[in-house]
């Protein structure tokens, strides 16, 4: 069984590793898989620990710090669609998706031929981790044109796209969230979208609770000011996921803490 994980910095190793390591070039981990820092990163985060617990023969972690849900959906569909095009089996996978802040976005810069990751803290070019000045205008305008209502509509679209894709293709999966973006953001949106909230529960969420998330799960964090999981926190989160996978009988494995 192959375990596929996607998410943002909470799955990537944020707070423990830096995107700005020019030697390891962690912003394109697929090109520098064997660099010692990258190997260390991949073996520190929860997908690695969970992969061992569920007996995965391979763990693929396509998360990226600063990544958006747009990126998560794009990369995940790209991965599975490429297997489908080659007539390869995909039901031998298990997937965890750690959804991130729905206000995040990405766009494609045709000048650099790279995706640009956009968060409320800034932006960077995925290919080289640079923050080119000429993209400042696009960045500012994206936030000028964005709205809570549209962010939530996009989030629904993303969850439904992957959730039903996994169901239709019989791929067992588990969804989780990194933080409490559902604080002011989510509650405000519920005024418009409480119907959606109820139906989001049809998908497999950790502990069957959309509001349960990594930051408030009681796992160890990097520091008081940094809510990313610490080294122990990643192991603890893997335990929480493994227990939930066993409870839901998503996979057949023996769960022992």
């Amino acid at each position, binding site marked *: 069984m192959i375990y596929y994980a996607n998410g943002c910095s909470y799955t990537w190793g944020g707070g423990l590793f830096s995107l700005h390591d020019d030697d390891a070039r962690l912003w394109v981990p697929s090109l520098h898989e064997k660099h010692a820092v990258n190997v260390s990163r991949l073996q520190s985060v929860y997908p690695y620990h969970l992969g061992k617990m569920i007996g995965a023969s391979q763990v693929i972690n396509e998360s990226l710090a600063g990544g958006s849900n*747009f990126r998560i*959906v*794009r990369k995940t*569909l*790209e991965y599975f*669609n490429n297997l*489908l*095009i080659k007539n390869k089996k995909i039901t031998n996978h298990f997937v965890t998706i750690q959804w991130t802040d729905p206000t995040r976005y*990405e*766009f*494609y*810069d*045709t000048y650099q031929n790279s995706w640009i990751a956009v968060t409320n803290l800034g932006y960077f070019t995925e290919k080289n981790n640079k923050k080119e000045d000429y993209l400042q*205008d*696009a960045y500012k*305008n*994206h936030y*000028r*044109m964005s*709205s*809570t*209502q*549209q962010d939530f*509509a996009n989030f*629904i*679209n*993303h969850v*439904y*796209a992957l959730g*039903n*894709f996994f*169901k*239709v293709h019989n791929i067992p999966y588990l969804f989780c969230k990194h933080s409490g973006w559902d604080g002011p953001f989510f509650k405000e949106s519920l005024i418009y979208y409480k*119907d*959606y909230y*109820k*139906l989001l529960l049809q998908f497999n969420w950790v502990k069957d609770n959309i509001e349960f998330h990594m930051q408030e799960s009681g796992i160890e964090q990097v520091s008081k000011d940094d809510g990313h999981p610490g080294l122990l926190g990643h192991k603890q989160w893997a335990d929480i996921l493994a227990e939930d996978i066993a409870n839901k009988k998503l996979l057949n494995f023996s769960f022992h803490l």
Partner: protein
Amino acid sequence: MILYANGCSFTWGGNLYNFSNGINGEIWLPRDKDHPINLERQNVVYPAHLGKLLGADKVINDSLGCGSNHRIVRTTLDYFIGLLNNNQEVSDHFVTIQWTEPSRIEFFDEIDDTWHMITAKSSVCETDPAKCNISNELREIYYKRIYSDIQSAEIFVSHIICLGSFFEKHKIPYLFFCSTNFWSEGTHLLKATLPKIDKIMCDYNWYNDIPSQSFMAGKVDAPHGAHPSLLGHIQWAEKLFLEIDRQKLIYVKREVL
């Protein structure tokens, strides 16, 4: 059985009707949904004819001229999720989705509480014609600063998967097709993605089976451009009817033709 249709101007009645009506343009069809002109329009477009051929008890046409695939996905999910939340049956529906040019987008304006529909050539405010200047400003910023063919193609794939998987999961019979042959007529990039699109997307129900060959334009009477004439809408309904029968999507009485 209820026929639910969504799409852009090809399904709305583009070229047969204008958004703005009345001596001073006081009637705005996207906003004044119950206006007699809107009711008349709904009766001449292909969903109405198809509904009669299929013996549908009710026809719901959620399309809108200038609308994007983002809007099609959002409003279609809104409709079905509303039913699911009220524990109403959804598998008694038949759905046609007419996908539009992937380059289109929409933005929600929180100040005016309205959606702006944006295409490469035009832009419209859904509820207030006086706000179309804002739509146009958003259009200029979006296409100049943020838009890329590669992103619109990627998001189109996720839209098709989102609705296709949703219908499959909820056992709602459906048929997909596009407005125009935008893949072959589009940019080099869109042409390049064609084999991938056809291979991945052919699992869903498409008119003519092959996604890139599944489009309305050029297949029916359209003397004033690509949009169907009154006769063209009747012809398209008949073509869809035959296709629904050929693919055995639902039981049809062939003798009605």
